[in-house]
């Protein structure tokens, strides 16, 4: 008979066997959750299938939402033998949902209800505006989503404005905040389109986007809404109601911003066509103006020469006429002067002739003398004379 060993020794030995077995490290186990109990930081539960159960412990409280009674889950972790209690538990480090849980059933029910009401109706969907200058984003101010959207949008078009409406994206009251944000942003005149965005997560994380209040706010919003909730594989109710569903927030930003470099390229092409046709028009106009200018200059030159010529003729004849007129007068006056000099009465007296006058009147014949006395005028004076004989 072998020597007995202590409980501690045995338990330690068993633990060492489990720890050494690499096949048992980081394995995934499928089962249904039951017997959940929680402390502040630890979740205790069991997984079972038809014929076996496995006690589990999870030290990650954020998996709390996935660990619900009756849910089918896949847990990943390693079995651990507790030396002190002599019990084996499965140490869970990751939990994934498996199959249709309660939340999923609710999701399906809500989707069917709203679909019947016509909230997913394609006819109701609004087209995106052609030019988008301002994008409203409804998401949390923390986290990568808003940053991703800004990065993508501004890389493609640095001119686009992005207005954030900060809301919770999960947890208590998130759906009310999101619905409120949609209703408020819908009234902003200068916002062209709204993105409702959130990063990826479990069905529970995305719960707010599956609520009726968010769906109705989206349906009622007068502005186009793009939903970008979760990863490409995640579908939420808002994705069916929104005017467009983007697979990710970055994709939404990409959809709404035209690639500026492409726009620049086509603008450049348009511009060069414009410049080309403008040059053509200007060139043609220039040619026609040049031609007309030349013709005009020719005409003016000819007119000038012609006018100048006739002006010269007119001037010359004018000067000649004036000259002739003055010369004629000079000639006339010269003649008159000569005549005057010739008939100068003094010159006759100067030659020694004397003039006979009677009563101040010239007498040219002796017969005219009818008085006893008459006057004889010499060059140096006059005398009274008396008739002596006939």
């Amino acid at each position: 008979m072998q020597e007995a060993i202590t409980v501690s020794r045995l338990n330690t030995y068993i633990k060492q066997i489990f720890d050494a077995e690499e096949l048992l490290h980081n394995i995934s186990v499928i089962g249904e959750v039951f017997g959940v109990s929680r402390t502040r930081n630890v979740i205790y539960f069991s997984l079972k299938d038809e014929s076996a159960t496995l006690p589990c412990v999870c030290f990650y409280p954020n998996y709390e939402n996935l660990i619900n009674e009756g849910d089918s889950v896949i847990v990943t972790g390693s079995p651990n033998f507790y030396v002190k209690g002599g019990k084996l538990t499965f140490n869970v480090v990751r939990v994934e949902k498996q199959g249709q849980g309660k939340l999923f059933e609710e999701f399906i029910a809500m989707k069917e209800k709203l679909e019947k009401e016509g909230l997913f109706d394609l006819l109701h969907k609004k087209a995106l505006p052609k030019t988008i200058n301002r994008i409203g984003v409804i998401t949390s101010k923390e986290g990568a989503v808003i940053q991703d959207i800004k990065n993508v949008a501004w890389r493609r078009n640095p001119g686009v404005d992005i207005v954030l409406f900060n809301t919770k994206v999960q947890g208590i009251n998130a759906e009310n905040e999101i619905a409120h944000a949609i209703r408020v942003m819908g009234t902003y005149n200068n916002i062209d389109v709204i993105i409702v965005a959130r990063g990826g997560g479990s069905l529970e994380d995305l719960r707010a986007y599956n609520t009726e209040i968010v769906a109705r706010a989206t349906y009622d919003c007068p502005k186009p809404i793009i939903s970008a909730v979760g990863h490409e594989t995640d579908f939420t109710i808002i994705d069916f109601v929104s005017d467009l569903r983007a697979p990710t927030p970055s994709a939404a930003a990409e959809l709404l911003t035209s690639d500026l470099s492409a726009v620049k390229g086509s603008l450049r092409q348009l511009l060069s066509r414009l410049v080309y046709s403008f040059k053509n028009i200007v060139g043609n106009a220039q040619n026609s103006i040049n031609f007309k200018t030349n013709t005009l200059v020719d005409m003016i030159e000819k007119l000038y020469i012609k006018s100048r010529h006739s002006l010269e003729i007119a001037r010359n004849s004018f000067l000649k006429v004036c000259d002739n007129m003055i010369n004629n007068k000079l000639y006339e006056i010269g003649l008159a002067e000569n005549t005057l000099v010739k008939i100068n009465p003094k010159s006759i007296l100067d030659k020694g002739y004397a003039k006979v006058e009677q009563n101040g009147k010239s007498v040219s014949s002796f017969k005219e003398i009818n008085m006893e006395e008459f006057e004889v005028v010499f060059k140096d004076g006059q005398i009274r004379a008396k008739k002596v004989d006939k």
Partner: protein
Amino acid sequence: MEKQLSYEEASSKLNEIIQKLEEGQVSMSEAIKLFDEGKALVNVCYKHLDKAKGKLTEIKETLEGLEEN
């Protein structure tokens, strides 16, 4: 002469005087008076014509100046 006569007035008056003197009907003193008057009228006429000639030269020079510009 009290009043400046025009060329036409002066020349027609001159012709009248010449005619009167040629007719020889006037007395010697009258003839001398007329002769002096005639000489003065000849001067008036020359003055008018000199003035006109000067004006014409001025016009000619102005026109030539215009042409050079």
